[in-house]
């Protein structure tokens, strides 16, 4: 079993996630893509920990998971609030903060 393959998988997952952020219109799907990117980062950390033979990467993965959870809470609260006033979950819809 080759830990380097997991690095490549993490990179692929990250790319898919970032494309999802850029391409999808639904705010929930964008968040899911962000979660995908965060998990890809976690995978990369754990794989590197395995390659280097210590547990530093796994500890950082814990940190990432906590941060991701907090961020989701806040983000979903914002989306729900926006949905309540605008009746739409598209992220293109609120574009008033412009020139």
């Amino acid at each position, binding site marked *: 079993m080759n830990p380097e393959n997991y690095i490549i998988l993490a990179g692929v997952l990250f790319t898919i996630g970032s494309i999802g952020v850029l391409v999808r219109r639904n705010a929930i799907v964008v968040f899911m893509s962000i979660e995908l990117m965060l998990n890809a980062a976690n995978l990369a950390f754990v794989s590197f920990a395995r390659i280097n033979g210590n547990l530093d990467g796994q500890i950082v993965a814990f940190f990432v998971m906590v941060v991701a959870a907090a961020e989701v809470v806040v983000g979903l609260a914002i989306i729900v609030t926006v949905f309540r006033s605008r009746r739409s979950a598209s992220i*293109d819809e609120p*574009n008033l903060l412009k*020139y």
Partner: protein
Amino acid sequence: MVTESAVTAAASVAPTLEPLNAATGIFAWIWLLIALPLAGAVVLLTTGRWTNRFGHLIGVATVVISAALAIAMLVEMMGRSAEDRAFEQTLYSWVFAGQFTVDVAFQLDQLSIVFVLLITIVGSLIHIYSIGYMAEDPDRRRFFGFLNLFVAAMLLLVLADNFLLLYVGWEGVGLASFLLIGFWQYKPSAAAAAKKAFVINRVGDVGLSLAIMLMFVTFGSVTFESVFSSAGEASDSTLTWIGLLLLLAAAGKSAQFPLQAWLLDAMEGPTPVSALIHAATMVTAGVYLIVRSNAIYDRTVFAATTVLVIGVITMIIGAIIGSAKDDIKKALAGSTMSQIGYMVLAAGLGPVGYVFAIFHLLTHGVFKANLFLSAGSVMHAMNNGVDMRRFGALRTVMLITFGAFTFGYLAIMGIPPFSGFYSKDKIIHAAFEQNTIAGIAAVLAAGITGFYMTRMFTMTFLGKARWDDEAHPHESPPVMTIPLIVLGLGSLGLGAALVYWGDIVSWLTPVTGYESKPIAIPTTVLELITLAIVLIGVAIAVLIYARSVPIEPPQKVSVLTIAARNNLYDDATNDIVAVRPTWYAARFLVWFDNRVVDGAVNASAAFVGGASGRLRRIQNGFTRSYALVMVIGVIVVLGALALVGLS
């Protein structure tokens, strides 16, 4: 006819630069000569209405006392030997800036004393005359204040012992001239004439300041003693430049070509002003400057020749202009321009002519003041009219004025034994000694002088009366006629007195040097030829003007007459040469400032505004576009890191 003076033909005497005596005895009062008129001016100009009733007496008193003091100093000087006649009095140290030190100090020598006498004596007579002339003017006290200011400044000019103090006096007389020409400042023509005189003078003053700067740089000091004693050590080009710059200053002050345009307009001032300032004294300051600086002009042929050329040109054009003017004062102003041209010509001849320039300056001061004051008397009688075409036959009503004017007329034409004969013929003789062309021009100008003076004389005093209906001409009061009589006697006798009784040549030689060369024809023949040409001028004028003078100036005249009526287009020339280019340059600079300088500033502001207007469209409010920008940024940073890491 005229015996040669003590110095025989083909002799040459250099000026002696003996050390100056300290001023003791009567000469300790040199400063008082200037202080009295200055105090008079201060009193009269600051006390206002309180001195209105007797202010003119204060004004006259200061100048008369200065005159008496000057005569006493002359008597004392005459008692001493020729090497012992120069005195120096230092008042205080004025400028002390490192190596540049200038003191307020006076130098009284043979040259300055003759000027002091001219200024104070002729000045006193004109002050007395002004009591009567300005009797109805409510500003008479102010007039005397300005006149005293002028006398003080002029005395400072001739008594200064260094060029910087001379410059103070120079500026002072320019100021006094401005104040007096524009005395009736409610007349727009007078105000404009005063401004014109001042501005043109200023152009000449640039020459004097540059010359002073050049002297300081070359000699380290600006006193006459140090400059003239070390003049031999300076380079030729420096001396030439100093000479030309001093000539520029003299041309401005003495109304010589090309700065002569102001003199005719200066006749807007009251007649005593024209007599004192623009005939006898201020306009002669330029000649004083040149003759005083003879040490410089002796060493630079180019500058001396330029002085000569300027003198010749002005002598001719002044005579031509004076021949076509119907205004009696303007005709006399043209005459003044021409006679000063004679003096400048003589000064430009070098040692052969310096003494005679001053000699003519003295006789001219007296007879020109005489002529102007007589003209003033005529104007007084004719209700301040100046148009000679409206005069005529005034000999029948104003005998004393007629007599005085006749003496002045004969003097200026150089008819023996009047004063002008001695001084003018000496200049013509000296001109032939040095430069035949100048001599021929001088004789020619004498002929034109004969013409225009006879024209003036005939139109004013002879012929039939062409008076206005309101004119009731009468003789002037004694306060005006007595100075006329004194000046008339001076016009008769001063020339002979300065040749036979007190020889002016030997008096001035220690200061200016003297040289005498033989000429091709005998002196008496030259004098007869000159007299003949003058009489031809007289005859032509008599033929044209004796019988009848049209009241309206004839329109069908020669081109030269039309040009002379327009002052030989000097205003137009000044306009084209100086006024227009300056105006265009100013307009160009304004355009440049508005379009280019402001344009650059405005353009940079517009650029920033335009750029920001375009750049802010990046903030379009779409979250996904912001996310895209972040992704691109990350890729760029990673790429850069990869490149750095690889290298």
